[in-house]
């Protein structure tokens, strides 16, 4: 039995990728959950908002690269990120003015708002395609690895390789910073507190003089920022393709609901629940099993589920939560 090698293999193939993916999902789910708790509808356009934000970041990254600006060992996209956030948030504010504001005024049912967000989804989808096309794009530059397989072997002398890509480290660090900033904002600032008050009890918040337009505007700005950051990190870590971002909608919604929709802590926990289950169930465990049980070579890959069915994992978890705990792991809202 070779416990250490098994541990390294699990870390390399499950823990590191799932942590990075979980952080991306958590940021996406935070955006969905924020719109849900303030504006009270499920935003189907969120995946395409992420795609749009990432598309803008990629264009600016290319511009920087053409001008010869680089960020040293870090990807240039991080420099472009603030500009992408500004543009995406501006688009969100514009969309709210042109589209959503009217439905708030007439107090449309949540399900009508969802339908409206489908319309917005089409337009965002078209904008992204106009902007950057439908092809797969790799825009990560800078140092590729923090630890590569050879360094690991020289460092430890172990036969099992371990690699840590810089995009994975960047994802996790950025996600921690963003989440810290968001919670500080929601918990400590006046605007953040008024947002939480608005989410808890709209009528009471209005009575105590909170300006709803300001709350809504700030929500859209934060949503645009979260979507751009989540999309860019996902794109850096894997690659950018507009349709993949649309498909991310399912794991993102699942994360938000598993954690308890409307609850930011829940969105983060949900993101990691979904990512670890998805990666864990679709990983071929053969190597780990061979290390752990000596003198036994399993026939197959010991893969519980083919990677083609990764969305089935999000779905199954979603269904289990809906059956057993519809409020989610942390108490979310039920309307």
């Amino acid at each position: 039995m070779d416990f250490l090698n098994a541990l390294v293999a699990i870390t390399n193939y499950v823990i590191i990728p799932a942590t990075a993916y979980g952080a991306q999902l958590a940021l996406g789910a935070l955006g969905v959950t924020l719109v849900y708790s303030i504006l009270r509808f499920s935003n189907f356009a969120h995946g395409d908002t992420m795609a749009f934000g990432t598309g803008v970041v990629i264009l600016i990254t290319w511009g920087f690269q053409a001008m010869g600006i680089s960020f040293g060992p870090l990807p240039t996209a991080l420099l472009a990120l603030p500009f992408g956030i500004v543009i995406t948030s501006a688009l969100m504010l514009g969309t709210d003015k042109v589209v959503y504001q009217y439905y708030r005024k007439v107090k449309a049912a949540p399900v009508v708002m969802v339908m409206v967000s489908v319309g917005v989804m089409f337009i965002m989808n078209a904008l992204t395609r106009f902007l950057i096309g439908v092809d797969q794009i790799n825009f990560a530059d800078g140092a590729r690895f923090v630890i590569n397989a050879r360094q690991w072997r020289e460092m430890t002398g172990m036969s099992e390789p371990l690699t840590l890509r810089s995009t994975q480290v960047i994802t996790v660090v950025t996600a921690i910073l963003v989440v810290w900033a968001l919670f500080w904002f929601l918990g400590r600032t006046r605007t953040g507190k008024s947002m939480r008050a608005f989410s808890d009890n709209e009528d009471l918040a209005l009575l105590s003089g909170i300006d709803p337009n300001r709350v809504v505007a700030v929500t859209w700005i934060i949503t645009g920022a979260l979507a751009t950051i989540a999309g860019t990190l996902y794109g850096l870590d894997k690659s950018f393709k507009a349709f993949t971002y649309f498909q991310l909608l399912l794991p993102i919604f699942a994360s938000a609901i598993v954690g308890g929709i409307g609850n930011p802590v829940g969105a983060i926990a949900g993101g990691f629940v979904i990512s670890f289950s998805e990666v864990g169930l679709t990983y071929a465990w053969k190597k780990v099993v061979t290390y752990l049980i000596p003198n036994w070579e399993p026939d197959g890959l010991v893969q519980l589920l083919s990677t083609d069915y990764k969305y089935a994992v999000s779905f199954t978890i979603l269904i289990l939560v809906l059956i057993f705990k519809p409020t989610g792991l942390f108490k979310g809202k039920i309307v």
Partner: protein
Amino acid sequence: MSTARQADAAAGGRLRAPLFFALMAGLIVLEGMTSGWNSALGILNMGLLSAIMALGVNMQWGYAGLFNAGAMGFVALGGLAPVLISMPPTPGAFKAGGFGILAAFAVAAIAVIGAVWLYRTLRGKLRGLAVAAVLIVGFFTFRWLFDPAVDAIEAINPSAAGNLGGLGLPTLVSWPVGALLAAGAAWLVGKIALGLRSDYLAIATLGIAEIVVAVLKNEQWLDRGVLNVNGIPRPWPVPYEIDLQNSHAFVTKMQAWGIDPTLGSTITVKLAFLLLFVIVIFALIWLTEMSLRSPWGRMMRAIRDNEVSAAAMGKNVTRRHLQIFVLGSAVIGLAGAMMISLDGQMTPSSYNPLRYTFIVLVMVIVGGSGSNWGSILGGVLIWYVWVKAGDWGPDMMAILASPFPAGPFKEHMIDSAAHMRMLVMGIILLGVLRFSPRGLLPEK
């Protein structure tokens, strides 16, 4: 505002529907005169299939206010029926692995039923352990039976078959079976997601649609996956072009009318499909209109307009929602099966959520939520716009891009024109929702 609009609709009500349908017919005739009748009938046939999908979605959204974000899944599931029912069986496939697969599914069903039973009877810590144990043992037994059976089936003549094949029954039989398949899946999803928050259903259906398409893409033993199934037989009265061209009587008749026999044969085939589709549509419209006028229809509308008061009157809202959700999905599945027999092939990678879920929602909204004739009109009209926007986009973009010098920017502009249709759909949907939420043919 809404009363004014209702009065307006009532005033123009009598003429409104015939006018819009005449306009639609005019557009199709114009298409026939300018681009040929093959293209016009092609658009009309797909438009009518989309209209049937829209009828199904309208039952869910229009009658009951249920948001189905997974119509694609039910279309795809319905499309599986012609493959399983009307294709000839693959020789030896059932013997090689059919029983193994049936046994595997039987084990899975027993495990799930057993787990549910244990969950209901046991209490405390033991319950979690017992349920988990049954499910885990069930899963591994399932894989142990399933994997070798799949390998055996996929090994049979992999270049042409490698799947179970069908039962070799007439294609018309497969249409209701497609509806049944979709209804079964809808029952499962609805049972879980209905009765909770309204948009949970949307998210659950979004998920089931992705999974259905993933299964169709990856399970080669079932439908050859991305290798596609070709040569799915046509439904009963529809002839094959090649038979018509070889038929002396047909060729002489066409020549007597002064029509090229090849062109004549393709148009005859399309007209035959058209006739079938129109019969199905009239049957569906008759059924839905009758049911809407029945006490059941009044109850459904009462539930949609005010769930709380309907529940207070003793109506079981969740059960009625489940009922209408299953019925609507069955209609969508029917359209899916019909579409596969029109295409003659099953290509799982062609199922795209924008095309088969969200455009259908646009059709329903544009036609008028809750209005069956509206769904038909919306189905054909929006499909026409969708197809034509693909043609007009590049032309328009070429004009827009003409002042720019040739170069990467101009190329980019012209390339991106193909995506114009998404923008058009988004603008139509948002425009109708905002300015005419009752649609072109409002519900009476």
